[in-house]
Structures are given as C-alpha cells and as structure tokens.
C-alpha cells in the first residue's frame, strides 16, 4: 500500500531550510543526498528533490480524486474520478518503487515537495472552501478545473521524466526510469486529455445550451429543497 501522507511514523525525512528546522532523527543527511545517483551523470540531489516533488504531486492528486469522487453530483464524473484516483494511487506506488530502485528514500520530503503540497492543498481547498458562493454547475467546473491544473503539471512531470530517461546511458538506471514512464505516461496522457476535453465540453454545453441553463436551475431547486428537508 503506498504512503499517501508521509509522517514521522512512516519514516519521513527532510532537509532544513532558512525557516525549517528538522529534528536530527528525521534529517536527510547531505552525504546521503549526494550519494543518490552518483556516477550516473545526473545531479543526484536535484533528481532526489524532483522525484520527491513528483511524489508529493501524485499524493495530492490521489487525495484530490478521493475528495472529488465523494462530492461531485455527476455520476459520470464520479466514476471517472474514482478510476483516475485508483490510477493515481498506483502512480504513487510506481514512484515510490522507482525511488527505491534508484537507491533513494520514498519517505524523503524535499523542499520542492513542500511547495507542491502547499499548491495541492490550495487547489483542493479551492473546490470546497467557497462552495457557499458558487452555484452547483460552477462547483462541478471548479472541481474539473482543479483536475485540469493538477493533471497539467502531472503530465508535464512525466513528460519531463521521459525526456530525462531518453538522455541517460543504457543500463539499470535508464531501465528503471523508462519502465516507470512507460507504465504511467499513457495514463497521464489520458487523464490530462480527458480533463481538458471534458472541461471544454461542459463549458460549451453551458455556454450554448439553453437546456443546460434550465437543467442547472432545476438542479439548484432540487438541491435547495433537499437541504431544507435536512435542516
């Protein structure tokens, strides 16, 4: 089972920064960071940070899909969010295994991963903190926006990793990268493509269809009634 929330209990480690203090027990030693991917021609510490960043993004993505699947009112979207959520959780596992194969620590949380987690948290919060001032149809779009933004970076991450793998000399390291990319990138193509296409369809439908407006208003009315029953 992949780790979706690294904590001290899972063995999370990080590095200090200007305003981050790290308990020595949870410190990623500089020597260990330098040893990562040594003699491969790669900048090991940077790649360690990058993979941690990618992992953080996948973890945030898995949470995003789990959250959206529970909150969308659209059965088609729910099904897709559940499906992509399962695949995204698998991507977490793929990255953890890749890092492990390369001699790294999947529990390492890089400074870049912290920044990505902050962005992911904000993206997720954007789908519910303002729900009271956004109509139901727009809420669905906001959720889809979050998916699109998340998948855009995700897709770019894996595309970048694919390019990196291509430039590596043949051997175990290249194989590890390539296997991970081959497993994940086609799915990322699908996730990103689906998000862009579905968002466009939803926007077009609402922009051009009087029926969508009527359906939206009716949905609002129904939900309003249900809420009143529950109050």
């Amino acid at each position, binding site marked *: 089972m992949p780790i979706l929330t690294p904590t*001290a209990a899972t063995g999370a480690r990080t590095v200090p920064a200007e305003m981050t203090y790290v308990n020595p027990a949870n410190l990623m030693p500089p020597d260990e960071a330098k040893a990562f991917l040594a003699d491969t021609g790669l900048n090991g510490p940077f790649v360690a940070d990058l993979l941690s960043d990618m992992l953080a993004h996948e973890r945030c993505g898995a949470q995003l899909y789990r959250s959206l699947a529970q909150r969308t009112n659209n059965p088609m979207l729910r099904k897709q969010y559940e499906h992509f959520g399962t695949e995204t959780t698998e991507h977490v596992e793929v990255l953890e295994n890749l890092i492990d194969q390369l001699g790294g620590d999947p529990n390492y949380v890089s400074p870049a991963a912290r920044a990505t987690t902050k962005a992911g948290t904000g993206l997720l*919060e954007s789908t*519910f903190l303002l729900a009271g001032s956004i109509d139901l149809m727009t809420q669905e779009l906001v959720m889809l926006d979050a998916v699109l933004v998340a998948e855009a970076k995700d897709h770019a991450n894996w595309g970048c990793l694919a390019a990196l793998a291509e430039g590596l000399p043949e051997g175990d390291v290249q194989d590890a990268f390539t296997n991970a990319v081959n497993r994940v990138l086609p799915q990322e193509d699908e996730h990103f493509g689906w998000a862009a296409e579905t968002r466009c369809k939803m926007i077009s439908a609402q922009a051009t269809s009087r029926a969508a407006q009527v359906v939206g208003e009716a949905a609002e009315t129904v939900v309003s009634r249900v809420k009143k029953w529950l109050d």
Partner: protein
Amino acid sequence: MAFNPLEQKGIPVDDQLRSWSELNVEPYDKEAVDPYTRTRVILMNGIEVESIMFSHQFARHTDNLDLKRKLAMGRRVDQQQQKAVNGLNPGDQTPLETTLGYEQVAVDLTAWLARHEPDPQLKMALDFALLEDFDHLYRYANLYELLYGGRAAAITDHLTEVMPGRPTFVEHRHPYDDVRPHYETHTVDPLSRMHVMTIVAGEQQTMNFYMNHGAEWVEPIARGLYAEIAMIEEQHVTHYESLLDPLDSWIANWVFHEYNEVYLYWSMLQNETDKRIKAIWELHLNMEIGQLAVACDAMRHYEGRDPAELLPPSLPETPVTFEPNKDYVRELLAATIDLRTDGIQYVELDELPEDHRYFTYQKTVNAGGAPSEMVIDAARDNGGEYRDETEGAHPIADLRPRTETTS
C-alpha cells in the same frame, strides 16, 4: 494501555449542549484548592479559548455552509466548555492571585514540556522562554506583597520557587528577534506538535489576560508591570507560534486542535485530585472525542484523507503533568541566564555586537526605567523583596537578594 481517540465513541456533538445551571459551576475554594488543580483550570481555559479563536478564524476563511455550521456547532460547545472551566475560578480570587496562577502554569507547564520534548530545537525554544516566565512570577509575587501584603506561596504552595529568572527588563527584544524557524509537518514527532500547540495556547491566554486586566488597576506600578509583562507575552506568542509549520491545511489544523484537546483533557483526568473537577475533565474528554470525530469526518469528505494516516495510533502514554520542576529550572538558570536571540539564532549576550537592534530596542522601551525593576526596588524599600527559594540560594550569585529573603 494505548488510548486511540479515533476508536472511542465519545459524546456526539449534537448531544453536548448544556443548560446555564450546568455551566454556572461551583468554583473551587481558593484556600483549599490544590495549586495544580488551579493550574489545570487555567491551562484548559486557555486551550478552549485557542480552540474557539481558531474556529472563528477558520470560519472567516470559508463560506461552505456545511463547514461553517459544523464549526459553529463545535465552537458553541467549546464556548460552553470554556465557561464551565473558567467558572471554576472563584470570585474572591483576585486578578493578581489568578496572575500568580498563570505564571505558575507558565513555569511548570513549560518546564514539563521541555523535559519531555524529543526535538532539541523545540526544547531550546521552551527553555528559553521558561526563564523569562519564571522571572514574571517573581515580579508579580513582589507586587502581591507590596499591594496586599500577600505571600505568593499561598498560591503556589512552595511547589514552584519564586526568585529572579532572566530579568524581565532584559527580555525586551526587537520583534525580528522573536521569530523562530518552524518544525516540518511531515517529519515532526506528534508529541512535539502537541507540545507546541499547547504552549501557544497557554501563552496566548496569558497575553490576553494581561491585555485585558492590565488597565483594572489604580496603582501606577501595577498598571506598569502588567503593561510590561503583557509585551513579553506578545513576544512569547510570536516566538512559539513561529514553531508551527504553516504548511498544514485548515482542516488538518482543525483535526490537530481537537486531537490535542483530547490529549490534554485525558492528561488532566489522569492527575486531578479533586473528584468534582475530575468529573468535568472526564466529561470534556468525551465531548472532545465527539468533536474530533466531526473534524475527522470533514477531513475524509473534503480532503479525501484518512485522519489515521496523519495522527498517531494512540495518545502518548505520558500525560501532561503539573509537578515541581525546581531542579530543572535551577540548572537552566545556571546555564542559560545570559542567552539572547539574534534573528533566528540563540546567542550569548556578549556575542551581540554593540550596535545590535537588541540594544536600540532596550534603550527605547526601558527609557525612564522598567516597572519590573521598580516593583522590586519598591519591595526592598518596603522591608525586603519577596522570594520563595525552597532549594537554597539562587544559582546565580548576582541574582541573590540584597536583603534577607522573606518567604
């Protein structure tokens, strides 16, 4: 035995509202109360106030009706809990006597947390401010004797020594030098997180108390002392809140607040000697378990996260405990009395350059003298300063009394 709040049923939040008569609790007898019962009451009042103010802040950052209602409901119950806890303080306990209780909390809570803190940098932060609060107890004790002829030991019962710490007038620092680095939320020990949340709430309540009660005095020396020490409490809140990682989400912070409240009520329950008050801690523990369940449900629903991934599998086995820390404080005094801060670093006084902002700030705020020194001068003029040095002479020769102690 391991106690996992997530596996407990507790009291559902909807069943937690109480009547006015239930909230209008019978206060403890200030002459008979165990001093550490008083400190438990003071601490848990501060914990409830922090919970309420956090909930208000969260509510101001969302218009999600479901979340706002859940926050409002939990906050209403927190407010009732706060009334039931703070109402235990008796009306014949003067604000100055309550202040002595606050400073006893500050000393013995901070020292206990420091002694049990696994992270050396966080322990350093606790140790640093401990010596400052320790000094406040001495200053207020002298005000108490000066104004009322009272002995602080009547409040502290000799469980906490009363003598100078890092002198209050040297504690005034430029605001930049109160900002500290924070722990990292993924890697922090859950116990450390709760220690920091607890001390932030405690110091914040002390700051609020002095902010509100400082103007109730007629005597200029009392007004001055409260104003001066209130400013140090502002420094301490700045100091301690810096230790929290700002990466955590609103909902995660909500869950952490509730979890910490569970831990603290459970802790108070383990140590309480007053059966009637113990029953309040037990009731509030079960209420907090119910409130934690609501926050955890919100985390599952809105963040797609299982709180069990984030929280420890059980509460720490050791309850937060009020007990004497005399040897610890004395050792700290001997070792770190001259410690100051320079930016985010702790440094010895003689390491600060002459033109450091510390000295400029000192010159500005202490121009015309510091009330914390005036109160001791006045006490000396009035027959001698008040101390309660139960373990012998002060470990710092320069801080030994100029006249005989009068404990």
